[in-house]
């Protein structure tokens, strides 16, 4: 008995669902992502489980593990930073600009406090320390 096996038909892969998924992914990344200028050096903020406040404020200062400082995508030293911050705060007069310090997890606390005190001396009233939510 001869069994007639039908020759395999080449089915064209449907492309429309694929495009739908890609569009959804695109929309997801557009909404979730914050387009920020790349940091001049890598900073790994400390992890915290329950830190409450929402991060990502207006003015963010970076403090690298080796003590380098950066603000608005540029590396600078402490006196320059204070001057630059003074300008920014003067521009934001009345809106109560807050400043966030994104420091590397391995930086010494003494250094962090020194920077925080310098920021206060520059006239910053609302200060916060940025952390990353630790993955459960």
């Amino acid at each position, binding site marked *: 008995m001869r069994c007639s096996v039908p020759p395999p038909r080449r089915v064209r892969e449907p492309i429309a669902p694929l495009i739908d998924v890609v*569009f959804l992914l695109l929309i997801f990344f557009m909404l979730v992502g914050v387009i920020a200028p790349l940091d001049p050096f890598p900073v790994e903020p400390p992890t915290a489980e329950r830190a409450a406040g929402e991060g990502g404020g207006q003015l963010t200062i970076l403090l690298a593990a080796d003590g380098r400082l950066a603000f608005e995508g540029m590396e600078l030293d402490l006196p320059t930073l204070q001057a630059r911050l003074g300008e920014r705060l003067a521009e934001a007069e009345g809106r109560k600009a807050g400043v966030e310090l994104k420091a590397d997890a391995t930086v010494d606390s003494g250094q962090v406090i020194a920077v925080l005190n310098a920021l206060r001396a520059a006239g910053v009233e*609302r200060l916060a320390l940025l*952390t990353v939510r630790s993955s459960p």
Partner: protein
Amino acid sequence: MVDVVFLLLLYFMLVANVQDLRAIPLNAPAATGGASAEDALVIRLLADDVLELNGAPVGLDELALRLGDALSHDPDLTVWVRPASAVPLQQLVRVMDRVRAAGVHHLNLVSE
């Protein structure tokens, strides 16, 4: 058409910064004003992971209990954290995280 969408997707995936940043607000010494030194709590954080609450050594869990106790007497309690300068920030943040989680709103950092 599909190529362009893929390129856009790639672009947004690479550019997007999906880190979930959280902020721990710090109170400036002036902003906490009025609170006198005696009703404030001082937590000292020494090297090698030793914690001291007002001079007595405590563990991290006991610290949370003591803070909850103190908060029930004075909800506007100010807590000062004094880390030794060589303590890494991660360790300091872990303690500050616990302090915030205990319900303290006025948290301040001072140097040794």
